[in-house]
């Protein structure tokens, strides 16, 4: 009744500066924010960093981003339900250690070893989900706890030993499947990159076109309302944590391909990196808001920054500095866009 002034009319009598026009455009298409940040940073680094725009380097960025990007997909699911999963990195390393232990050290056939690793990810997700839904522990605390537990298991199972690339090649080369590459016009794409894209594509369909997706958003938005509206909150939440665990299991397979070996010390920082990708991608930490395409772009943005700064030969100190500001600025831009509606 009060929407008698549609935007079309409003645009005639409200003068806008170009900046305001941009703000309104982005407000209407919020998923374009990370895309824009990505474009600006690629162009920026292209101008100043030598070799940055070479197909080789660009495909390298995608390869470098593949594992953390896949983890960011898992993290996004949990964050959409207003949770947070501090354990994604630990679950991934645990799953990859299981794959290596079984497939290389114990001589289990590779497909079985991989399956066991992925199931291990699923089981870890199940544990997180049960703690969150049955004991009603806040996800932050639950996963802070299981993070410690899963790392302990990694140490226990791996005996702190890396399984060497050559040994994997000899015993179970299938573990390195996602490290395989193919050429596409100067670009070198690994299967791990395709896995990441596939995971995001599946999540896109599941979140936007199925009842499950609607329920995930509804729970993140207002859990109590969702429960009163007849959604089985606990079941959906459990499925979300299990899906996240499953994706971590897939990421583990991809990580073996990426690193070439099974390394219990790799990806120690990947948990914070996945969160960074998600927030730069415009998904709200309060749940229920944001598109799943965002974290994919967010992960690539982080990759672009790291690569660009490295090519510029900037000291690690300033890389840290830049990452800090990137996080703050990306989210500040997001807030600035939302401003017109508050």
């Amino acid at each position, binding site marked *: 009744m009060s929407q008698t002034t549609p935007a079309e009319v409003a645009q005639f009598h409200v003068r806008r500066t170009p900046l305001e026009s941009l703000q309104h455009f982005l407000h209407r298409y919020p998923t374009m924010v990370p895309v824009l940040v990505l474009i600006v940073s690629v162009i920026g680094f292209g101008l100043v960093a*030598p*070799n940055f725009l*070479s197909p*080789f*380097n660009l495909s*390298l960025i995608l*390869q*470098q981003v593949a*594992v953390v990007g896949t983890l960011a997909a898992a993290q996004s699911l949990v964050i959409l339900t207003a949770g947070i999963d501090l354990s994604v990195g630990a679950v991934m390393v645990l799953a990859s250690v299981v794959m290596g232990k079984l497939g290389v050290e114990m001589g289990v056939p590779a497909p079985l070893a991989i399956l066991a690793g992925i199931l291990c990810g699923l089981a870890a997700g199940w544990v997180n989900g049960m703690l969150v839904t049955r004991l009603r522990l806040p996800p932050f605390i639950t996963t802070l706890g299981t993070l410690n537990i899963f790392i302990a298991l990694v*140490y226990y199972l791996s*005996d*702190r030993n*890396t*399984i*060497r*690339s*050559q040994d994997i090649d000899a015993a179970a080369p299938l573990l390195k499947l996602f490290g395989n590459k193919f050429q596409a016009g100067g670009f070198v794409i690994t299967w791990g990159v395709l896995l990441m894209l596939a995971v995001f594509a599946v999540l896109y369909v599941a979140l936007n076109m199925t009842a499950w997706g609607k329920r995930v958003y509804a729970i993140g938005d207002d859990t109590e309302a969702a429960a009163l509206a007849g959604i089985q909150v606990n079941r959906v939440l459990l499925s979300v944590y299990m899906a996240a665990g499953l994706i971590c299991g897939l990421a583990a397979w991809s990580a073996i391909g*990426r*690193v*070439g*070996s*099974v*390394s*219990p*010390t*790799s*990806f*120690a*920082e*990947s948990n914070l990196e996945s969160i960074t990708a998600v927030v730069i991608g415009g998904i709200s930490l309060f749940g229920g808001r944001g598109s799943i395409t965002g974290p994919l772009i967010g992960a690539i943005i982080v990759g672009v920054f*790291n*690569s660009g700064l*490295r*090519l510029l*030969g900037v*000291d*690690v*100190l300033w890389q*840290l500095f830049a990452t800090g500001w990137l996080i703050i600025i990306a989210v500040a831009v997001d807030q600035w866009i939302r401003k017109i509606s508050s």
Partner: protein
Amino acid sequence: AQEPVKACVITKTDINPFFVKVKEGAEAKGKELGVQVMGYAGKIDGDHETQQQAMESCIAAGVKGILLIASDPKAIVPAVEQAKAQGILVIALDTPLEPATAADATFATDNFEAGRLIGAWAKGHMGDKAADAHIAMLNINATQPSVDVLRNQGFVEGFGMDPKDKSKYGDEDDKRIVGQEYTDGNEEGGRRAMEAMFQRDPSINVVHTINEPAAAGAYEALKSFGKEKDVTIVSVDGGCPGVRNVKEGVIGATSQQYPFKMAEMGIEAIAAFAKDGTRPKATEGLDFVNTGVQLVTDQPVEGVPSITSDEGLKLCWG
């Protein structure tokens, strides 16, 4: 060919002075020889992924050679091979890769020898009392990197105990070892670990520490118990603060290593390689180029070669 020769130096972290000195040494030598040096590091100890990314960026940047202190000497091998396939000279510094032949050359401190030296010194320093020593082993962290294992096992052997499996620690059955604790290689961890050790056995009289910051922390703990006079602390590194601690009696003896030299040799090798393709050769009898290690102490022990803290101060870094 007007492009300057480029080289990368990749270290474990950017916070440990040892790694910082490697980078500075490389940069200084690079300036001298006209090699442009770019430095990278992992975010935390054991951060393999960032090192792998740095390797790839170095390839993308078209460098001639890479100096690498590997966080995970096994896991980095595929990335090293990728670089070698692009005609890049890869030199492992400080930590040999596994297998060591994966790198074109290795310039390293012999960490086992470093450990052995302080072990032998501690044994000699105690004399007869060494038979009923109570030894605390303060290591780095639960991932047990190879440097940690080598120094620990070297110490055990140097002290005349049986290290059993040399690829790990904690499997020794010599009663003189009270236990193993982790310090994270910093002062706070060293103090906490020493406090725990002391409670398990208040008669501890020898402390092996992974590095000098951990040693300084352990000393603080002992001082707070009033035991600093009764206990001998040994360590590895040879940084200037550590050597000064030797001079002041905080640390009994430390094995000094030479990051500057390591880095300079590395850059020299890369410059030579860029000029005419010559590759460095390993030290006789070792599968790496030993950059040397010397025991620094003001209480020399017969049969264990050492230099004084004043000499050590001239050679120290950081």
